[in-house]
C-alpha cells in the first residue's frame, strides 16, 4: 500500500474494537454463576447436562446410554438433558454463548432425546405442536430454521413446512395439526403480504389460532399488527417463550401487549410497550 497505517499511531480516532476492549476473563461455561445455580448436582444428570452444554453429541450419546441403563427415560430428558439446554439458553441470552454453540448443544440434546424416546416406546407427551413456515415466494429460511431448532430443543413438536409454502398449504396444515401457535417467516416486502392472506383465510375457516408470529428483513411490527392474530417476533429464541405463553392461555392480543414481559428481556422493537 502506498500509505502505511503502521507508520502512524492513533487508530483510536478511527475505530475502537469494543468487543475486545470490554471482554471479560475467560471462564468455563459450567463455572458461570447462573449455570451453577441450576446445574443438576447428581449423576447421571450432571453428565447429561454437561454433554449438552458442551455441545458434544458423542458425549451425549455415551452419557444417555449410561443413564438409560439405570434411569427412566423421562428423567433422562427432564432432569438431565433439558437442564443442560436451559443453561445454554441462559448463556446465549447473556452473550456468553454464540449461536453455533447453541446449535451444537441442540444437536447433542436431540441425540440424547431421540435415544430416550426410543427407550420410552410410546410417544412422549410434548408441550404442544407448532406449525412453522416461510411465506410463499420467499427462499429465506435461516430464521425459520432457528425457530424450529429452538422450539424442538425446548420440547415442542414442530411441523416444519419449509419455505416458499403456498398459503393454502399453511391453512390445511393448521387444520390438521391444531397447533398452539403458527410461526411464519418472511423477509421481503412482496412476500410478507402473505401473512395477511393467511390470516384472512384462517379467519374465514373459522379458525381462531392463538398466535401467528413472524419476523425478518422487511417485516416490521406495524405491518404484522395490521392483521388479526399477528404478533411480531423479534428473536428466534423468543419463539419458545411465546409458545409457552400460548400453552398457558395467552392470546395474540395479550402477546402484542406483553411481548417484552413474556420473553423476559428488553426488546427495542417493543420499547413503547413497557
Amino acid at each position, binding site marked *: 500500500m502506498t*500509505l502505511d*497505517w503502521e*507508520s*502512524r*499511531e*492513533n*487508530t*483510536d*480516532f*478511527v*475505530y*475502537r*474494537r*469494543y468487543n475486545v*476492549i*470490554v471482554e471479560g476473563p475467560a471462564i468455563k461455561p459450567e463455572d458461570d454463576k447462573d449455570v451453577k445455580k441450576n446445574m443438576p448436582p447428581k449423576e447421571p444428570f450432571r453428565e447429561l447436562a454437561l454433554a449438552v452444554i458442551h455441545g458434544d453429541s458423542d458425549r451425549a450419546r455415551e452419557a444417555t446410554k449410561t443413564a438409560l441403563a439405570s434411569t427412566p427415560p423421562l428423567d433422562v430428558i427432564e432432569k438431565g438433558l433439558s437442564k443442560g439446554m436451559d443453561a445454554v439458553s441462559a448463556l446465549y441470552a447473556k452473550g456468553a454463548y454464540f449461536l453455533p454453540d447453541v446449535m451444537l448443544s441442540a444437536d447433542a440434546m436431540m441425540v440424547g432425546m431421540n435415544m430416550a424416546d426410543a427407550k420410552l416406546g410410546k410417544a412422549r407427551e410434548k408441550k404442544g405442536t407448532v406449525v412453522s413456515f416461510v411465506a410463499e415466494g420467499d427462499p429465506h429460511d435461516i430464521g425459520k430454521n432457528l425457530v424450529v431448532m429452538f422450539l424442538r430443543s425446548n420440547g415442542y413438536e414442530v411441523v416444519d413446512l419449509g419455505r416458499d409454502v403456498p398459503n393454502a398449504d399453511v391453512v390445511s396444515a393448521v387444520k390438521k395439526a391444531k397447533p398452539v401457535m403458527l410461526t411464519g417467516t418472511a423477509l421481503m416486502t412482496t412476500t410478507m403480504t402473505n401473512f395477511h392472506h393467511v390470516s384472512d383465510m384462517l379467519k374465514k375457516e373459522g379458525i381462531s389460532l392463538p398466535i401467528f408470529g413472524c419476523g425478518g*428483513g*422487511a417485516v*416490521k411490527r406495524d405491518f404484522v399488527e395490521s392483521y388479526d392474530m399477528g404478533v411480531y417476533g423479534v428473536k428466534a429464541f423468543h419463539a419458545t417463550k411465546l409458545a409457552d405463553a400460548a400453552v398457558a392461555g395467552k392470546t395474540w392480543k395479550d402477546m402484542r401487549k406483553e411481548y417484552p414481559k413474556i420473553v423476559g428481556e428488553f426488546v*427495542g422493537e417493543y*420499547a*413503547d410497550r413497557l
Partner: protein
Amino acid sequence: MGIFRYTKLAYREPDEMLFGHAKFPVSAHWGLQFGAGYVVPEVKVAPEAGSERSKEVMVKECESIAEQAAGRAVDIGLPAFLLEQEHVYQQTHFPDWGGACTRAQADVLERFHNEYGIKCGLRQTVGDTRLEERGGLRGTDYDNEIAESIEQCAKNGASDIAAETMGGKSVLDYGSMRGDIRAILFGIGVLGSIDMEYFWKRAVRICSHYNCNPAGDTNCSGANSVMYIAGGLLGKDFSHTGAALARAISAARSLVAVECGATGPLKDCGYENTIVKAICGVPIAQEGKNAVCAHADVMGNLTCQVADVWSNESVFHREEMGGPTPGVWLQATGYEAALMNTAIQTGNAKILRDLYTLTDKYRDPQGTLLAYDNAFRVAGAIVEYGKDPYLRARAAALECSKVITEAYDAKKLMLTRFELDSLNKYTSVLEGLPMESERFIDECMKEYPKRIPTFDPKSYGL
C-alpha cells in the same frame, strides 16, 4: 450596545482550514472534544408522529432514539459521536418536557460512556417558538418559555445548546419569494443580526450556569430555506446564484452568536459555517451527503471540507431493513467521519479536503461560494466591515457575487441565463445601496412595514 465584533480572520490563509481542526477547540463532558484534531459524527432523528401525545411518550421516544444510536455506535466501533435532538414544538413549549427528554437521553449516553468508554455528547436544539406576528419576538410567553427550555436542557445533561432562530423571517420570506435582494439583506443581515444578539446574549448567560456549551445558531430560516426552495439543478423556484448571495449574507448574521459568546460546534443546516469558521475559528457542524434523507443539496461532498462535526439532517424515526434510523444514519455519518480521521492520522487530510471541495466547487454556484478558498474571501469582506452588521452583510454578498462572476468568466462555472441575469440584477441592486447603515434601515423602514403585515419593527428595537 457593545458586543465584541470580529474585525480579523482567525486564519492567515484558507489552507490553514481543515476538517477536524478548529483554532479554538471545545470540550464537553463524557470525554468529547470538538475541533481538536478529529471529526465527530452526529445524528439527529425526529420524534415519531404521535409521540407528542404525552410527556411520557415523548420521553420514551427520545430515550429510544439515544439507545438505538449509541448501540450502533459501539457495534461498529465509532470512537465518538454527538447526538442531537432538534426540539419539536412541545419540547420547547413545555420546558419540563425538554428537560425530561434531555435527562433520559443523557442517562443513556452516560451509561454507554461508562460501559465502553465511548466519547459522546448531547446537543439540544431548542425550537424558536416565537411568532413575530403574535406579540413580537421579545418578552412574550413564547419568548420566555424558550429561555426556560434552554435552562432545563442545560441542567439535565445537555452538553450543548443550539438554535435556529427566526429573526427577520417576515421580511426575508417576502424578499426570497420575490427575488428582492434588498429585502433579503435587510431581513437576514440587519433584522436577523439584531435578533441574534438579543437571543444569544441570554442563551449564553443561561448556559454559563451549567456544564453546558452555548453552541450557536445557523440561518435555517434564511440560507437553508432559500437553498431548499432553490432545489436541484432543474428547480425553478429560486435562483441558485440568489441562494448563494443569501448564504453569504447569512454568514454575517450567524457570526453574531459567537460574538455573544457561543463557542461552537456551530449548528449546521444553513451551510454558512465555512465562512463563519474562517472568521472566528470555532468548531462547526456541517451536513451534506449524509443528509440526503432530508435535502437534495448540490454540494454534499464540499461541506465536509472544514467540518468538525459531521451530521445528517433529522430523519423519520422508523425501521429500515438494516435497523432503526438512529443507528442507520449515525453509521452513515460515522463512516464518513472515520474516513476524514484516517486522512488526518495519515497526514493526508488536506488532499482529502480538496477532493471534497473540488467535487462540488463548480457543480452549482452555491458550491463555488462555499469552497473554502472562496468562503475565506467572503469572510475577509465581512471582517473588513466587521463593526457594522449591515455593511458586513452587504460586503459578503458583493464578494460572493465577485467570486461567482470570476468563476463564470474563467469558464470554470457554467450558469444558466436565469442564474446569470438574477446575479447581475441583484449585484447592481446591492451596489446601489447606501454605505450608511442608518440610511439603509430608514429606506427599508419606509417600505417594508407597510408591505409586510407580519413584520413587527419593535421586535428589533426599530
